């Protein structure tokens, strides 16, 4: 079990469904379980791709 913060509210989370959890990670919490971790790399990459595709379209126009 771990303590996780949801916007400042601290609750217990079971880590049994997560591989190698580490303190400080962002997780997806569902029914009291950490069911996945949030990937900072992928989050930034998604935002970057949206910006990039649109810049390309701006250039065409």
């Amino acid at each position, binding site marked *: 079990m771990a303590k996780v913060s949801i916007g400042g509210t601290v609750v217990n989370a079971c880590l049994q*469904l997560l591989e190698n959890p580490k303190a400080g990670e962002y997780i997806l919490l569902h029914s009291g379980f950490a*069911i996945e971790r949030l990937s900072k790399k992928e989050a930034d990459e998604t935002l970057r791709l949206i910006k990039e595709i*649109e810049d390309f379209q701006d250039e065409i126009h």
Partner: protein
Amino acid sequence: MKYIDEYRDKALTDKLISSIRSLSVKDIILMEVCGGHTMAIQKFGIPSLLPPNIRLVSGPGCPVCVTSRKFIDMAVVYCRMNNVIIATFGDLIRVPGSVSSLEKEKSMGADIRVVYSPLMALEIAKQNPGKKVIFLGIGFETTSPTSAVAILKAHNQGAKNLFLLSSHKVMPPAMAALIDEGVKINGYICPGHVSAITGTQIYESIVHTYHLGCVVAGFEPVDMLQTIQMLVKQYEQGEAKVEIQYRRVVKPEGNVKAQQAMEQVFCLRDDWWRGLGVIPQSGLMLRPEYSIHDAEVMIPVDVPEPVEPKGCICGEILKGLKTPKECKIFGTACTPSDPVGTCMVSSEGACQAYYKFNRS
């Protein structure tokens, strides 16, 4: 908050809207099959941002909404028994059954406890060894692994007084059944948290059998709009493939540990879905080796076949055939404070989403 504000950025949403408008030529209907998406779409006013040729419809993605009235009726019978404690998620207690609801039974003294995790049900069982604790298991692949872990722990710890009444369901058979029934859509906005568990393999047969695009979506406005853009792009180019928009959470292979827990504890069975009826191999029941925790096996009850409430069109709403506003009792005889149908009860239901954010 981290990765929430960034995905609500106005400049990015404006760019995506502009991109969708330039890409989209053909009429297109996209269906979301996740209650969280249903709520997000209405909360953020996504339909109002789209050109008129793009229509969003809700599907059977809200667990409370598709759960049978018989399940509630069984829970009501259980809660009236001596030495029984019902442990349930909060949404379920307000769902009307044929003769009562768990909320009414609780007000009359039944021992019904709202929990936010199946592990809380296990704790209640351990604290009350002389009582039978029945956990009402609803939900799709996101929630069923958590029930699986609770049952595994109960089994290993000898907590023989924890039982599961399972209405757990799996999503792909319902997505296929809708199309088989003739519902016309052009792509699926696929559930983000179900997919975090299952991965994307489960959508391959939808893509190949029905030539429908499937994009796994996150829950913020940028997520929803990028997903729509990806589906529009596929449709305009005549493509149908599985893509992940919600990459910061969903991996193609999913959560293998959670899949293993589900596989260890559950097996498939035919199950009833509101609006769709019985769909083969679409529900989850405990495997025989865990049947000592199966409420239906250990505490069998007989309840009559229920009748759906008059005037309620939840079944058609859950198939995307009608919107809540087309229901005659929407907002009048059926409101969140006094709901008739499950789609108004649930915080993930289409009727409640429309009532809160799109009533006018």
